[in-house]
C-alpha cells in the first residue's frame, strides 16, 4: 500500500519537489545576480590598478587556496597527484588548489546550480557543449580582458594563437582560457577490420561505395559478426549521416535539428538536409545496406556497447572521431594481435573542420575574489612543463611513463588519474601516447592540411525562442527519420513524405526562419 501511494506522487509532485529543493538555492540566486556585476567591476579595477603600477608580477605574498570545479569522476589517485601539484604550485605562486568533481551522470543539472547558488569557487571547466554561452550571457563567468590575460597569464597569452581567442568571444568578450591543442577534429570516420576486407579480396575502403561492399561482404560471409554497430541507439538520425551527408557535402552541422548551411555559401542559406537530392540518394544507399544485413534489424533497440562489441569481435565496423577510434584501435590490437584494423575516411576529398577552441576551456567564476591567482594557476597548468605533465598525466612512473620530452606510455594506473575533464589544459606541451596507432596519427596529419576555417565556424544557435519547435521536431525525427534511415520502412517515398509532413507540422519552418535570422545577424557583425 505504501508503495502504491508513493507511486501516486508521480511526475507532477516529483518535479515540484525538485523545485522546492532548488528553492533554497534560488533564494541566494538573487544575490548572485546582484553580486556578479559588482565583482566584475572590482576585478577589472584591480587589474587596472596593478596595471598602472607597471607590469610587475602580481602580489603573491599571501597564500591562497583556489577552488576548482571539474567534470568527470574523482580520480582514485586524487590525493597523491594533487598533493604533488600543490607542492609545486605553492612554490611557484604561493597557492594551492582543491578540486570538486561533477560526475558525468548529472553534471548538467549540478553545473548551473553552482552559479545559481553562488557557491564559493574560483575556477570552473566549461565548453561549447558545457553551457559556456549560457553561463557567460547570464553573468556567471568573469570577463577576461586583454589586460588581465597578458598580466596574469602571460605564457598563455603568448602561446595561444589569436584565432583561438577570437573563437572564444561572446559578444566580443572572452570568458575562458581555451585549450591550446594544435588540431582536434570533430569529423568522423569509420574503423574496419582490414583482415576481413583482405580475406574477401575487396578494394581498400575510402568511399561510401567501397564501405558498402565491405559491410555486405561481412554480412554475407561472417556468421556471428554484425557489420556495422551504432555509436548510440539514443539518436534521432542515422549515425552515418554526419559522414555521408554533412561531411561529404561540406555542410555545417547543427546538432539536433534537421537544418544546415553549406560552409562555402557566402550568403549562408539555411536548408533542411532531409529535403535534398543528396538525402534521397543516401536513403537508397541505406536501404540497400539494411536489406543486405548491414546492421542489426534491432539497431534502434540495441542494448550493448558498440566499443566492447567491436573489441570482442562481434562487430566488423564502427564510426566515431579519430581520437576515439584511435583509442579503440589500440585496445583491440592489444587484445587481438592477429587482427588488422584500418581507419577509413569515407569522404577523403572533403574539407575538414577542426574543433573550435571552445571545445574545452577553463573559466573564472564571476564572484571569485582570487581571480588573479586563479589565472596564474591556469597559466601554469597549460604552459609550465612540470605542472602540465602532472595535471595531464598524473605522477611520472606511477600513472604514466614519460618517454623523452613529448611521448608517454600508459601504465596500469593511468585510469586512476585520467578520469576527468583535464583536456582543457591541452597545449603544445602535450605528450603523444606511444600506443596511439600510427594510422590515427597519419589521418590527423592528412586532415591538418585540409582544415577549413569559415565565418560561421563559431556560430552557436540560440534555441530559446523556438524551444517547443525544436523539441517537437526532434521527436518527429526519432519517430520518422531514424526508422526510415535504418531501412525499417518499406516504402521510402511514403516514409520520406511522412517525415517532411510531420516536421512541418511540428514547426520546422519556424526553426528555419529563426536560424536564418540569427545567422544573418551573426554575419552582419
Amino acid at each position, binding site marked *: 500500500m505504501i508503495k502504491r501511494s508513493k507511486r501516486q506522487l508521480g511526475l507532477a509532485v516529483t518535479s515540484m519537489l525538485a523545485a522546492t529543493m532548488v528553492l533554497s538555492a534560488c533564494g541566494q540566486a538573487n544575490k548572485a545576480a546582484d553580486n556578479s556585476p559588482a565583482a566584475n567591476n572590482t576585478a577589472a579595477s584591480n587589474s587596472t590598478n596593478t596595471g598602472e603600477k607597471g607590469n610587475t608580477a602580481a602580489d603573491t605574498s599571501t597564500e591562497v587556496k583556489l577552488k576548482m570545479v571539474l567534470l568527470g569522476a574523482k580520480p582514485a589517485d586524487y590525493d597523491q597527484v594533487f598533493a604533488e601539484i600543490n607542492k609545486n604550485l605553492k612554490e611557484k605562486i604561493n597557492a594551492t588548489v582543491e578540486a570538486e568533481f561533477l560526475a558525468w551522470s548529472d553534471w548538467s543539472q549540478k553545473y548551473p546550480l553552482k552559479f545559481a547558488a553562488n557557491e564559493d569557487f574560483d575556477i570552473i571547466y566549461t565548453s561549447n557543449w558545457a553551457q559556456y554561452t549560457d553561463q557567460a550571457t547570464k553573468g556567471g563567468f568573469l570577463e577576461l580582458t586583454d589586460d588581465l590575460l597578458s598580466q596574469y597569464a602571460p605564457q598563455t597569452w603568448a602561446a595561444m594563437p589569436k584565432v583561438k581567442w577570437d573563437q572564444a568571444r561572446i559578444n566580443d568578450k572572452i570568458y575562458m582560457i581555451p585549450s591550446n591543442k594544435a588540431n582536434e577534429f570533430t569529423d568522423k570516420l569509420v574503423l574496419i577490420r582490414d583482415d576481413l576486407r583482405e580475406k574477401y579480396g575487396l578494394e581498400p575502403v575510402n568511399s561510401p561505395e567501397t564501405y558498402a561492399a565491405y559491410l555486405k561482404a561481412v554480412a554475407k560471409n561472417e556468421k556471428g559478426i554484425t557489420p556495422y554497430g551504432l555509436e548510440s541507439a539514443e539518436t534521432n538520425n542515422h549515425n552515418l549521416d554526419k559522414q555521408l551527408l554533412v561531411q561529404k557535402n561540406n555542410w555545417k552541422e547543427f546538432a539536433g535539428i534537421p537544418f544546415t548551411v553549406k560552409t562555402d555559401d557566402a550568403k549562408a542559406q539555411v536548408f533542411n538536409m532531409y529535403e535534398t537530392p543528396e538525402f534521397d540518394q543516401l536513403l537508397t544507399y541505406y536501404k540497400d545496406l539494411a536489406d543486405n544485413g548491414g546492421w542489426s534489424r534491432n539497431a534502434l533497440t540495441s542494448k550493448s556497447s558498440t566499443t566492447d562489441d567491436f573489441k570482442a569481435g562481434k562487430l566488423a565496423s564502427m564510426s566515431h572521431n579519430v581520437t576515439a577510434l584511435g583509442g579503440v584501435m589500440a585496445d583491440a590490437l592489444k587484445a587481438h594481435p592477429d587482427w588488422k584494423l584500418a581507419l577509413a575516411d569515407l569522404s577523403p576529398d572533403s574539407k575538414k573542420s577542426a574543433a573550435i577552441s571552445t571545445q574545452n576551456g577553463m573559466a573564472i567564476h564571476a564572484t571569485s575574489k582570487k581571480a588573479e591567482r586563479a589565472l596564474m594557476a591556469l597559466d601554469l597548468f597549460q604552459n609550465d612543463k612540470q605542472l602540465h605533465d602532472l595535471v595531464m598525466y598524473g605522477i611520472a612512473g606511477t600513472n604514466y611513463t614519460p618517454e623523452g620530452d613529448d611521448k608517454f606510455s600508459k601504465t596500469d594506473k593511468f585510469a586512476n588519474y585520467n578520469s576527468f575533464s583535464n583536456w582543457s589544459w591541452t597545449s603544445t606541451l602535450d605528450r603523444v601516447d606511444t600506443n596511439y596507432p600510427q594510422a590515427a596519427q597519419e589521418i590527423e596529419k592528412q586532415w591538418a592540411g585540409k582544415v577549413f576555417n569559415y565565418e560561421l565556424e563559431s556560430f552557436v544557435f540560440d534555441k530559446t525562442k523556438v524551444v517547443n519547435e525544436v523539441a517537437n521536431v526532434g521527436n518527429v525525427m526519432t519517430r520518422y527519420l531514424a526508422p526510415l534511415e535504418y531501412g525499417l520502412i518499406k516504402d521510402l517515398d511514403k516514409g520520406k513524405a511522412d517525415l517532411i509532413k510531420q516536421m512541418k507540422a511540428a*514547426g520546422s519552418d519556424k526553426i528555419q526562419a529563426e536560424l536564418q535570422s540569427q545567422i544573418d545577424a551573426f554575419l552582419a557583425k
Partner: protein
Amino acid sequence: MSERRHRFWHDVVKYRTLLLMLAPAVLLFFLFSYIPMSGIVIAFKRFDYVGGVFGSPWVGLDNFKFFFESGDAWRVTRNTVLYNLGFIILGNLLPMITAILLFEVGGKWFRKLTQSMLFLPYFISWVVVGSIAYNFFSYEVGTINGLLTWIGMDPIDIYNTPAYWPVILLVVNTWKTLGYGTVMYLAAITSIDKEMYEAAEMDGANVFQRILHVTVPNLYPTLIILVLLAIGNIFQGDFGMFYNMIGNNGLLFSSTDVIDTFVFRLLIGSNEIGMSAAAGVYQSVLGFVTILLANYAVRKYDKERALF
C-alpha cells in the same frame, strides 16, 4: 455553537492517543505533498535560476503549448490510459485468483514457496527486465526467434512491429507485479472470519460455492480501494517500464508511447523545468478528476465502500 466546540475539544482529549499516532503521517503529507504543491506555479512560468520558483516571469499557458502543438497529445494520453486500464484489470484479477487458489490449495510449505517465487520478479529493476526482454525478442540473437527457426518457422521481427507490444507489455507487467498483488489479497483472505467458512460448510457449500459466496464478497473492499487508488494514477505511465522496454525505438511509438516517455524525450535536451511541470500538472488534474468521478460512482453504488 459552544456546544459543538466543546464537543470538538472533548473528542480531541478522548482520542488523543489515536490523534498522536496520526500526527506523523499528517505532518509528512503536509511537508511532502501539500507544501510542494505551491510549486505548481512553475508550470506557468519560464523558469530561470536568477528568479527562482516565485521570481521567474509568468508565461501563462505557454508551457502547455508544446504538448498540444506536437499533435501527439491525444495519442500518448490514449496509450497511457489504455495501458493503465489493462494493468488495473489484469493486475487485480490475476492476483485475486492466485491468492484464492493459494489459500485453498496449499500446504503451508507450498504456499510460502510459491508466494516467494511469484514475488521475486517484483524486485528486478526495469533496466534488467529490459535487457532480458531484448535477449528474448531480438531478431538475430533472440531466444524466441532461435526456437522459431529451430522448428522450421520464419523468425518474427518483434522490435519493429508495434502490434505485438501491447500484449508483451501487459504480460511483462503482470509477471512483475503478480506476487505483490497476491500477497495483498492473501492478507485480505486470511483476515476473513473463519466462522463464515464453517457456517458455509455446515450448510453444505462446496469449494466453489465457498469461494464465490464467502471469499470473493469479502474481498470487495480491498479490491475497491486498490482500484480507486490505481485510477488516480491512470494518466501516469510507468516510465521505468516503458523507457527500458522500448527505449528510443521510434517505430514502436505509435502503440507504446505514454505521456511520461513522450515528455521525457521532448525535454531531455532543453532543461525546461516549466514544461515538465506543465505535463505533470496536466496528468495530475486529469487524474484528480478521474478519481473524483470513480469515487462518486462507488458512492452511488454503495456508500460504505467509497474512499471518501
